[in-house]
């Protein structure tokens, strides 16, 4: 296996690459089987003259002027790299790189260190990885020689994502909040519950059980046409964390049996648009069922402003009028879960995150601290800041690792859905209190609100409540 600094690369080679201009450019429609991928993922490579194909191009061999490589998913970063046909070599003083018994084409001494060389490995056939691995092994059999593959990087998604997902990570996906045990105790995974997600858009994928969806403009009436829903990764990951069903990829949401109500708002996420979305989710028009829980991981674009009376009233109305169709004397209310500010700051006074009736969810670290999300008045509790999410592009699914409070809030909403599945007549206010009371308490310095979400304790406590 190829390594850098002793760390295995685990490259997932997906395409052959040539830098001569031959072959078609990859457009976004053709990248489905590359996993979560957008045009910008590959744009920089293609601007640099790289072209990719599924089968080896005719001149795919080493030793020519053609620069060749393999497009690969990088194991530790989300994004792509190109494994080139070159190796980086550090030699002891006075050793000639061509005396080491490895067939090289071009060899360049790097200008910044006299003993560093960039050497092109000569080989034939299509197995570039094996050729590079063999060359490195041969080079490193000489004392004092260190060699590594040369990668061309493109960390275009570096800012918003974590890394690739190992089978172990998938297996332990929900361990932090003890969700698998909660499923077992609850004997349900959210059946009969409607969970609404408010975001900028969604991939309407088969792994999401969608009850209905709508596009809510800032002005004008909502549209229920699926064609008006833009495919937006952020919304898909939030929806998937609540209700992704088992599918091609074995990563489910926290409550995979819920039915989802997906509400897309305009990209300019004004408080008016979000307020309209909350109203629509909780008390919809027509005969569409209303949401039992609502999750929103958006920041109103007027974040600096205090929460408007319109948005505040929409949340109040959801709590007062949501779930009014269950035969109870009073509506039971729809709880609204909101992602905390994604910065380690005191939650600004007067904002929607601080507004009491909103369940504000921060993001916890492994050790329970919340160094990367807000704290102070308004923070109700934390949920893990990192999770594997369903990423969807076109018709194919992939999984990836995401971080932030946007990940935390849907997990809490998913656990709320589990509770309502077992206790459908629980009031929204009682639901929020139940989840907060069941949290794992943290050191007061952790600024963790009531602590870290614990699905098992939440469901266990819920079952103590008379149905």
């Amino acid at each position: 296996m190829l390594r850098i600094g002793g760390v295995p690369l685990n490259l997932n080679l997906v395409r052959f690459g040539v830098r001569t201009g031959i072959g078609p450019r990859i457009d976004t429609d053709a990248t489905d089987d590359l996993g979560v991928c957008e045009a910008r993922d590959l744009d920089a490579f293609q601007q640099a003259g790289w072209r990719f194909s599924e089968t080896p191009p005719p001149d795919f061999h080493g030793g020519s002027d053609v620069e060749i490589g393999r497009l690969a998913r990088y194991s530790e970063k989300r994004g792509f790299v190109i494994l080139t046909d070159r190796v980086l070599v550090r030699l002891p003083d006075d050793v000639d790189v061509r005396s080491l018994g490895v067939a090289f084409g071009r060899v360049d001494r790097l200008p910044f260190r006299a003993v560093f060389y960039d050497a092109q490995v000569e080989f034939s056939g299509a197995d570039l990885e094996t050729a590079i691995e063999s060359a490195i092994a041969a080079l490193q059999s000489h004392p004092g020689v260190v060699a590594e593959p040369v990668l061309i990087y493109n960390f275009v998604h570096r800012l918003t994502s974590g890394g690739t997902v190992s089978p172990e990570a998938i297996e332990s996906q929900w361990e932090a909040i003890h969700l698998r045990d909660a499923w077992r105790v609850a004997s349900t995974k959210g059946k009969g519950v409607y969970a609404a997600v408010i975001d900028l858009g969604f991939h309407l994928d088969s792994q999401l059980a969608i009850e209905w969806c709508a596009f809510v403009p800032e002005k004008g009436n909502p549209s229920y046409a699926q064609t008006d829903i833009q495919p937006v990764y952020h919304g898909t990951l939030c929806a998937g964390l609540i209700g992704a069903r088992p599918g091609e990829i074995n990563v489910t949401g926290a409550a995979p049996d819920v039915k989802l109500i997906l509400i897309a708002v305009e990209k300019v996420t004004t408080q008016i648009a979000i307020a309209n979305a909350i109203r629509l989710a909780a008390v919809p028009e027509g005969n569409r069922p209303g949401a039992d829980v609502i999750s929103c991981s958006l920041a109103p674009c007027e974040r600096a402003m205090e929460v408007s009376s319109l948005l505040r009233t929409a949340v109040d109305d959801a709590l007062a009028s949501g779930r009014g169709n269950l035969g109870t004397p009073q509506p039971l209310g729809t709880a609204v879960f909101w992602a905390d500010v994604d910065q380690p700051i005191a939650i600004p006074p007067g904002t929607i995150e601080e507004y009491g009736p909103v369940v504000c969810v921060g993001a916890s670290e492994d050790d329970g601290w919340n160094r990367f999300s807000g704290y102070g008045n308004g923070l109700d509790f934390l949920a893990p800041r990192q999770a594997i999410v369903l990423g969807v592009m076109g018709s194919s699914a992939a999984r990836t690792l995401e971080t932030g409070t946007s990940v935390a809030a849907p997990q809490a909403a998913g656990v709320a859905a589990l509770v309502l599945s077992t206790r459908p007549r629980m009031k929204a206010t009682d639901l929020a209190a139940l989840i907060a009371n069941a949290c794992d308490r943290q050191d007061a310095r952790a600024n963790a609100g009531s602590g870290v979400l614990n699905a098992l304790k939440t469901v266990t406590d819920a079952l103590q409540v008379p149905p």
Partner: protein
Amino acid sequence: MKVILTISGLSVLACQSRNPRPTTPDAVDVIIPDAHRHRPRLTYCPEDFAQPDKRLKPEMVVGTSGQRLACLDLSFWPLLAMTVGADAGEFSMTWGDPKQPTPTYPDDERWMNWVPTLQELGFDPFPMPLGLPNGASARLTLPKGQIYSRNVVLDKERNYVQWKFPSASGLIKSVANEIVYTADRITEVTIATPDGVQVFYVNERSTRSLLLSISNDLETVPSDYNDPLQSLDHLKHLSELAKIHDGVFKPPVRYSPVRTARPICNQALFVYDTVSNMSAVAPESCCA
């Protein structure tokens, strides 16, 4: 010409040396961890280098004096090396008394004492490869030159703030906000990828100072930027590169009775002996 490269933001200065307090390390690299919401950027004056390569698309940003600056996101150029033409001698770093908690004289601010080591912060050494370390978003290999710390953090009363390092037996000392690399009497500065793409190049005979910076700061200014800071929690992001020794990060906490003016996003020092065996030099014992 003199080149002055400011290293700011969350980064690790990796020095190859057998001396835990190296004065003339064999090699020095700036390693930038791939931290949440941070961006590795190279900034320079666009008058100094109008890039011929169309793939280089630095943003045009404007300094507070109205000066136009080119700001290159290193997403596609994470592996870089800087050269300064003629051999600039040796690397040079200055160290002071390890027991001294704060600078006494202005020149003391240049001591590398004020850059905490990974070990002082409670991190294990990480493998130093030839290329991009695991968990890094960028690496800049520096040529021979002088390296010093700058902008030791002050409080509003202009006193040096002291920090207590719980992972270093309660070590107490000041912390710098930046590291500076400089080389003098040079005629050429190149920053290029290993395969020769120049992301910066200047060749001239002059007496002026050429200013550059490599940074890894937050994408946006946090709203509490000017609020007082109690602990350097931010350094936990170094866990992208290095393992936390006992699993729980214990950030340096403010020791001075006064408060800092604003949060800092600063650097750490990592001294390793060789690339091949990846072992770090044991830190000197430090005391408060």
